[in-house]
């Protein structure tokens, strides 16, 4: 009869617990590094809300930002639906409600330069319209930008610049108005 073998049914892993110890130290009894976990095939990607399930919206900037982003997404979604239905006035009203959220979202800029860049671009993009209602394509891109921030609030700067470029492609002028005046003066 062959020797009995210990068969490991599942590969296991745990957060490592290497410790600074003298080489001479020995352990007796049950070791501590036994926390094990069955490796799963890569599951679906978590949402930010799932990754940080107990965020305190009063104390956490990320928590506040996620609440505001969710509200902003709802406003833009309403605006997009209304614009598609041909109700430009109500669509513009929804956009103005969205605009009112942007200064608060700007206060969450400590989440990163990328986050601040996109929020800035949205704010100035809307302000620079000077009262002209946003068109459907612009609404769609703004909605897309907010969804990117909701999904990846800590996005890389290159990705943020790509989001801004897509906003600009719809005709939105995303730079502060003062910057254009300075640029014109310099060119003159």
């Amino acid at each position, binding site marked *: 009869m062959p020797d009995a073998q210990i068969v490991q049914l599942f590969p296991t892993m745990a*957060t490592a617990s290497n410790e600074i110890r003298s080489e001479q130290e020995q352990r007796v009894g049950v070791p501590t590094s036994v926390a094990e*976990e069955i490796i799963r095939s890569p599951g679906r*990607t978590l949402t*930010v809300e799932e990754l940080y399930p107990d965020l305190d919206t009063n104390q956490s900037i990320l928590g506040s930002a996620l609440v505001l982003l969710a509200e902003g997404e709802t406003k833009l979604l309403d605006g997009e639906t209304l614009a598609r239905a041909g109700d430009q006035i109500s669509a513009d009203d929804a956009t103005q409600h969205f605009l009112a959220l942007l200064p608060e979202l700007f206060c969450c800029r400590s989440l990163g330069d990328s986050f601040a860049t996109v929020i800035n671009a949205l704010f100035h993009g809307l302000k620079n319209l000077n009262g002209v209602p946003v068109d459907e394509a612009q609404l769609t891109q703004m909605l897309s930008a907010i969804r990117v921030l909701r999904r990846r609030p800590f996005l890389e700067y290159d990705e943020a610049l790509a989001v801004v470029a897509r906003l600009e492609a719809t005709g939105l002028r995303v730079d502060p108005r003062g910057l254009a005046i300075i640029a014109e003066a310099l060119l003159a």
Partner: protein
Amino acid sequence: VHFELRYDQAYLLWDKAGAIWQDIRKANPNIKLREAGPAKVVMTIDRRFQLTIELDKLNISVFTPPSSMDDFIDLCMSVVRTSVHTLEIPLFSRVGLRVIYRQNFKSRAEASNALISTKMMKIPEGKHFGIEGEPRLPHYSIRWEGDKLGVQVIVQAQERKIMVEPALGETIVEPIEKDVFELVFDTDYSTIGTVESGQFRASEWITNGMRVIRRDSRAFLGG
């Protein structure tokens, strides 16, 4: 406290390990090399922090943590930012936070009885397996899993022997031999699904994880 990120093998480590560690050293001049190989580098800072970067995982540990975790969180944020950016890691297969608490006791029996007295385990009395003895070094382990996050909790009594022997002929330093009996409460809180790097910030994960662990550990430790 151990913080860990796992990812698909990052081959750029073979090209850019030096750049990553140089960057970390700029912010932490006291960093000391402990182990270096093509697939794994281990460094320590002030005998308090241990940093390990491997082809498929990154681990940062703090030992004897103070009441504030701020310096650990700052270190994790800067190391993660540098490593993820340099190694171009788009996705984490697992994010983990492991917190280990220890309480020392005078003897093996005392440490064992501390866990047995919680009545977390059903331990029969009397003679068993033909042994007239006492239950020693009990170990309790349980795992909770949702479809996004999981946690493994281990409570155990254990014994460690610390032996430090100076070099032969060294008379200034006395050898050390010490038995340590302790009760260990070990929680390993981690993700189950994957996480995009753009979703992740170490400070949020650690702060949130520590709060969850402290809050829900009461169920085991009884307040």
